[in-house]
């Protein structure tokens, strides 16, 4: 019997464990890999930690900082262990030696995300060796020192795609092009600068791969410009010779472990404490929604861990909840339920539906503006956040981006 089981030892899971422990709870942290850190271990580039550690770190450094804290805090760690099934107060684990049932009082799911596959985007043509998700190539190069080919095309300009364009180039692979179906990149601006422009890699917006060709391995891809409905314009189709195609076409929260009864809309519905509709099951990090930065996932893990720790000891105070809704300028907000507390602050995270220049993010309760933040530039690729005081939340709240 343990108070809190945290599933997933990436940044969210480690910080959740730490915070739960700080509340006085006993904590078991489970990960399916032989080490903590999750995907951070393969993200060997720098740019992590400015927010959380106030210092620029590489992925593995960021992971080992948190790991050190976890170990010093005396958190129990279970590695190489796959959580098969969860229900309230119960976690079923498959360890290398067999199955185990673990009783607990609260669960924090921090299982991260997976990459969208070729099948999920209906990639046409052959299913050949040489078509990989960007993340698996990242692991191929950074863990094993192997290469996916000599001439690469990258589909999708999210951050992983951009980072891999640079990584491949530095390892001697020629990146023939990065193709992006949208009119803009969903990656960070600085990554376009330092990963693409630094190496003069062609980045083609409004373009996609129409066909993968080859016999045993990829020998080329056909690509074309897309129209406003993102359908390829076949008259623009061209062949690009290459021997591998990397897919960086989005991350999908890996939340299949959650019981069916947990309420969802586009995402799993959580309150500001990151508790799901099933009491005692909390969720944070990329398994909830996709974060731009490990630092943000860490921060969210802390929220979930703290309240799971309190809950597990019967110390979590209950409040009435209000709903959070948002305008059509916003694609989603996190969280979607707010506890009506009397003091302190909470943060609303959101992604915009379009790019905006010099706009305000407004949080309204009825007609009253209860929080306001001016932003010079808002892009679809970058998560926005705004702090709100609990005491101002009297009723349902509404978030908007406007003049």
């Amino acid at each position: 019997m343990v108070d809190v089981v945290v599933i997933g030892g990436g940044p969210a899971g480690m910080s959740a464990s730490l915070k739960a422990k700080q509340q006085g709870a006993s904590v078991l942290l489970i990960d399916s890999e032989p080490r903590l850190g999750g995907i951070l271990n393969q993200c060997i580039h720098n740019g992590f930690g400015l927010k959380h550690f106030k210092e620029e770190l590489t992925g593995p450094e960021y992971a080992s900082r948190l790991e050190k804290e976890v170990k010093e805090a005396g958190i129990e760690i279970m590695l190489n262990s796959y959580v098969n099934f969860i229900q309230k107060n119960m976690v079923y684990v498959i360890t290398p030696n067999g199955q185990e049932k673990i009783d607990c009082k609260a669960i924090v799911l921090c299982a991260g995300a997976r990459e969208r596959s070729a099948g999920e985007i209906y990639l046409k043509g052959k299913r050949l060796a040489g078509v990989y998700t960007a993340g698996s190539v990242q692991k191929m190069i950074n863990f094993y020192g192997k290469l996916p080919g000599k001439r690469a095309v990258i589909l999708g300009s999210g951050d992983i795609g951009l980072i891999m364009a640079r990584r491949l180039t530095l390892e001697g692979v020629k990146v023939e092009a990065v193709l992006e179906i949208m009119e803009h990149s969903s990656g960070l601006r600085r990554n376009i600068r330092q990963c693409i422009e630094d190496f003069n890699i062609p980045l083609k917006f409004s373009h996609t791969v129409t066909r993968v060709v080859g016999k045993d391995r990829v020998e080329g891809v056909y690509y074309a410009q897309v129209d406003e409905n993102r359908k390829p314009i076949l008259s623009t189709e061209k062949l690009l010779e290459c021997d591998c195609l990397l897919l960086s076409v989005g991350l999908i929260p890996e939340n299949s472990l959650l019981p069916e009864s947990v309420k969802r809309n586009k995402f799993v519905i959580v309150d500001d404490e990151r508790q799901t509709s099933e009491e005692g099951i909390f969720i944070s990090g990329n398994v909830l929604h996709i974060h731009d930065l490990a630092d943000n996932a860490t921060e969210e893990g802390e929220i979930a861990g703290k309240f799971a720790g309190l809950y597990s000891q019967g110390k979590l105070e209950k409040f009435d909840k209000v709903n959070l809704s948002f305008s059509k300028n916003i694609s989603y907000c996190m969280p979607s339920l707010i506890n009506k507390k009397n003091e302190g602050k909470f943060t609303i995270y959101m992604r915009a539906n379009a790019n905006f220049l010099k706009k305000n993010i407004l949080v309204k309760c009825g007609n009253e503006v209860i929080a306001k933040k001016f932003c010079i530039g808002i892009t679809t690729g970058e998560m926005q956040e705004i702090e709100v005081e609990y005491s101002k939340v009297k009723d349902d709240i509404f978030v908007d981006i406007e003049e």
Partner: protein
Amino acid sequence: METVCICCPIGCRLKIEKVDGEVRVSGNSCPRGKAYGITEYTSPKRVLTTSVNTGTVTYTLKTTDAILKEKLFDAIAEIKKLKLKNYNLGDIVIKNLLNLGVDVVITGVLKEV
């Protein structure tokens, strides 16, 4: 010139120009951005990260500071020559890489990869 600051995820849009022999940076929102802008105008530098797999252990590495952009490929070739064994996180494995004034340090040790 116009560029994007790479110091942090905000990615400020910088305008850098030389006025009366002095490099001026605008658009930055912190002092790091200003310093970056000046270097970018005169001699662009980047931090290099890479990894070395020894068969059983993978070491991830970085330069302790940014190095001249045009030296990135020479630097990575130099690092790949390393035969690493029994190093720990934080150990310096190359001192003064290619006389660029930076060291190469271990950022991660991955066993059982």
